[in-house]
């Protein structure tokens, strides 16, 4: 998955995020292709324990604090929506069209 300019998250941060995300997946899903449209619950099958673990890891790595923490929230529906939310928390405005 590639992203173009205008997004606050740098390539390095993006790689960090993907690594944190992959760490939470079932072994059988470790090589799954992750795109902005990948849904956390249905496609990546992140259960609640791994979901909260992901939030905690992201907070530590990115220096942000999630004010929305419900797994059912629209902010955590897909990988893309979570990244946009992370960007928002860092004070950046992200154009949702800018994922390639």
């Amino acid at each position, binding site marked *: 998955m590639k992203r173009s300019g205008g997004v606050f998250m740098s390539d390095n941060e993006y790689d960090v995020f993907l690594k944190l995300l992959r760490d*939470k997946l079932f072994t059988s899903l470790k090589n799954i292709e992750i795109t902005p449209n990948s849904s956390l619950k249905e496609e990546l099958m992140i259960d609640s324990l791994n979901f909260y673990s992901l939030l*905690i890891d992201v907070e530590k790595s990115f220096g942000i604090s999630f004010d929305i923490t419900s797994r059912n*929230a629209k902010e955590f529906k897909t990988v893309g929506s979570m990244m946009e939310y992370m960007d928002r928390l860092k004070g950046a405005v992200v154009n949702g069209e800018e994922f390639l």
Partner: protein
Amino acid sequence: MSAKVVVINMYRNTFTGYNCFSSAVGEYARIKGCLDITDILQSQWIFSFDKELFWKNCWYAGASLLPVDHLLKQDLMEYANVSIKEYTSTKAQALIESKEAIKRNKAQIILVDFYYLDSVNWEAMRRFQVYPQHDSHFIILTKINEDTADFIDPYYNYKGSISLVKLNEARNHQTKQGNIVYHSYDMVLSEARNDRLLELIKYRFERFLKEKMYYQMEEFAIEVDKKRLIEGKNQNRNWALDGYNSLRSIVEQRSNLSCIQEKHSILLPPGLELLENRWSYIRKKLFEFYNNGPFHLEEISYEIFETSLLEKKYAKEVVNSILE
């Protein structure tokens, strides 16, 4: 390009209840084509907390399940004309009866020892030092094969199979919540109705206030703070995982009611999303503490206490706003 999903024996569209009992009842009703009662299941509003169980590190201290959810049984009877019957059996008869029940109803709700199931990703759980335990759990049998049985575990969104040898162990075992003796359940759905939903929602919030369920939330907050004061920083943190598990029920209830509100265009006061998020935040904090995070029990206790006040306020607003 969208993600390619590897099939790993998961079932993604199971019924979302607020505990394993309501999930199994809802899934069973769906299988039987009786969708009328699913709204009843997804508009529940209860909370229970048992101080003694909390200090014994029992995850179900606040999960509204011990193991059968009696309030839900009452609500179904009173407002949907649905009764749930419980049966016990013997080793010799259980499998025969299951086959007959499945032939008759396409499925059978049974009580099992969760220890024997693969419904959750134990491999992932082990990373957090979470291991199988002997807990009562409701699942649905859908087929008995020569050596295995197919089942759905709706609470964990899982569909899979289990060997008959293991199933027999799971159906006849002592669990933390009591002894399982080939328990099975059937529902009388022929006269089911769903025309009193608003009335039921109002009743549930009145019950929440009358039985001071918000106070049980406050009690939870008090006991969390006692953990901080009595046991200090070097305490065993397993209780926090139990607390985290037990609060799943309350989050699901708030999420489910939001869906019901949208589905039926019911005008409830704003605040459901806030409550769901606050409980989710508390769960996250409990898990963080369990997972060697900071010693922030005072904050967790305060959050629970504050949320209980909001719960009380919200319940009053609902009671005053609907069916007026």
